[in-house]
């Protein structure tokens, strides 16, 4: 799914600049705990989260996440946006809640990058 489709589906607003709106996002996951993100995610994903601090960006760098969607209208601080710009990670903010934002994307055909249980970890 293209980044611009995601933005329009969640009625989101892009907070970072110079992004490739045709960039393909392969899948997504929703999480508020950073270790859950690291445990579960695959590269090239979008992360939906209600957590809104620079650590989210750092986690994204480590996990090769391409886009972050802040739910419930969360507004990151400027330093968070700066960091994302430096690392070419797109940040989107939406007024939708986590459940709704995830649901809309899932229904639109976005693949889930979440691993369902610990047993999946070794695969």
């Amino acid at each position: 799914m293209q980044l611009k489709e995601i933005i329009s589906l969640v009625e989101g607003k892009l907070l970072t600049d110079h992004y490739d709106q045709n960039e393909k996002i392969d899948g997504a996951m929703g999480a508020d705990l950073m270790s859950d993100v690291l445990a579960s995610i695959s590269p090239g994903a979008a992360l939906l989260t209600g957590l809104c601090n620079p650590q989210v960006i750092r986690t994204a760098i480590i996990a090769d996440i391409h886009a972050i969607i802040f739910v419930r209208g969360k507004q990151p601080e400027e330093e968070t946006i700066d960091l994302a710009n430096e690392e070419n990670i797109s940040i989107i903010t939406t007024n939708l809640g986590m459940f709704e934002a995830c649901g809309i994307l899932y229904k639109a055909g976005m693949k889930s990058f979440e691993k369902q249980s610990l047993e999946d970890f070794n695969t």
Partner: protein
Amino acid sequence: MAAQKQKITDLYASDITRGEELAYELRIHEVMTKDPFCLNPEMKMETVLSIFQENRFSGAPVTFEGELIGILSLEDLIRSLRNNDLNGSVREYMTLSPITVNANDPVVEALKTFARTNFGRLPVLDAEGHLVGIITKGDISNGLLTALQRDYHEEEVIRYRASHLFEDIVSGRTSLILRYDIRKGDFVHGGNASSKIKRALLRLGASPQLARRCGIAVYEAEMNLIIHTNHGGSLRVEIEPYKITMEAYDDGPGIIDIEKAMQTGYSTATHEIREMGFGAGMGLININRCVDEMRLISSRERGTNLYMIMYLNENNGTPAKEE
């Protein structure tokens, strides 16, 4: 909402600055079209029409005995067509003594002239006043893109040099050691060291998968130092041709029950730390999953030492084993 708009404008502005920087660095002669096709003042407009059509020109300088005397644009050609005057000469329709720019001036001078005059092309003169080229906005865009490409290429060169480090330096046992001090409670910089380690590994030629696995492991270890130690601690990464050893150590308080700490979801993190998105009880489990070998040594007297080791093989894309 207004503050939000401001933010984007600032970021947008910082983007422009990089372009401006290049516009000052690049000289006009570096981006212009050299030896442009020149028209003769006695040429008929009919000839110009076929030249412009064939070559898809939208304008050309007019020279007489090698000196620039005017410029003829598509609009001038249209004017002659309107007048049904294709027999007219270039001399009658050209713009005399056109505005020119100097070959040695920075590109920004040409940009300023374009903005001021609204012309589509400008003849370029050398120091002696001879016509050496022509510049359009398209030439400038291309020049800037090429320069950006060059910037990118320089990063590739750094990467190439770094990835040959292990081949160029011969010793009985070569290793590269990176050290980072991590402060207790420093959430603002949390993950900074790990990002740097990941980038260093990529520059050294590690595959993205390997860099990511190391990054995740060392990130969890870094956050543990920030969250759980008495006084912070250190990260030490030793890169050798055949393995990467990542070590996190601190001086306490030590892990009371290692077996429990290794259980999924078990965490001693406080409510505040969980609010920040940490303390899921997944840290050590994530690390164990990412690295080939993990060793955890902890005591109340000596604090905690965590060793994370990755063994490299041909497929992992490590510097010394390439080729």
